[in-house]
């Protein structure tokens, strides 16, 4: 009787049916594309920052003679700041990439542990992106108010 009730309860609970699995599978495809795109954009952004900082440094050296000597610290600070920003940003997309690979693997092999790991990665991605979004919102808000 208990077993019967348990079976009925399981039937009543949510399942990974074909529709849910298809959504998760397609989500894996799009998140893979998104994470690769963001990896490429981040690499380009870093390259641009390094080039811009070099150009900016040499330009200021012409305007203010001897700037490169005192400006080395500023250059390193800008480069480090950009690097840290990009690394935090990349961490979020690493988790999205992890989700994309694990969810496909988990669904195809029907391995619930792999599916759970994938879902954990997606959760972490949302946490990081929400915190970063909230920080950007605060900065934007205060910039608007004080301007």
């Amino acid at each position: 009787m208990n077993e019967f009730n348990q079976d009925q309860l399981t039937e009543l609970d949510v399942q990974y049916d074909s529709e849910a699995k298809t959504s998760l599978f397609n989500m894996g495809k799009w998140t893979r594309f998104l994470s690769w795109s963001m990896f490429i954009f981040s690499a380009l952004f870093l390259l641009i920052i390094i080039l811009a900082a070099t150009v900016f440094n040499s330009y200021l050296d012409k305007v203010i003679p001897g700037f490169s000597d005192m400006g080395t610290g500023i250059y390193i600070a800008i480069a480090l700041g950009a690097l840290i920003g990009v690394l935090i940003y990349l961490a979020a997309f690493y988790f999205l990439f992890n989700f994309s690979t694990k969810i496909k693997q988990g669904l195809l092999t029907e391995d619930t542990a792999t599916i759970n790991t994938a879902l954990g990665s997606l959760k972490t991605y949302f946490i990081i992106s929400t915190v970063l979004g909230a920080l950007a919102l605060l900065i934007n808000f205060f910039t608007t108010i004080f301007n």
Partner: protein
Amino acid sequence: MYEQTNNLLALEAEVNPEAKAQLDAIGKWAVYSAAVGFASLGVNILTFIVTLNKVSEYGAGMGGVNLFQTFLVTVVSLLLNITLYMAGTNIKKGLLMADQGFFNVGLKKLNNYFMILGILMIIVFGIVLLVILFGGLASLMG
């Protein structure tokens, strides 16, 4: 391979308690993320109004460009955040009420959210390529 994948996806599997906890957290954070997105949109509109007041001396053309840009950002941001909000609430509702319909709608909306982001990314790639192409052509001609 395609048929094999479809056959595997057609099989039903149980959502175990650990997966439920992860999905519930995903739903919760998706709603928070959408809320932050809505708030950002509000701040962007506020920034637009402040900027519009400051640059009004540059003429109507400047304001027109800003208005179009803000309108575009508002539409895209609303579309994305409404989709994300609906994904989060439907997933949570599906898990709480053990309703397969809500659960599936939530996952479909989450898929739509990433699909919209992907399409936006393709558009951005296209624009970047066009800029590089026209920039290269302009430097060759100039």
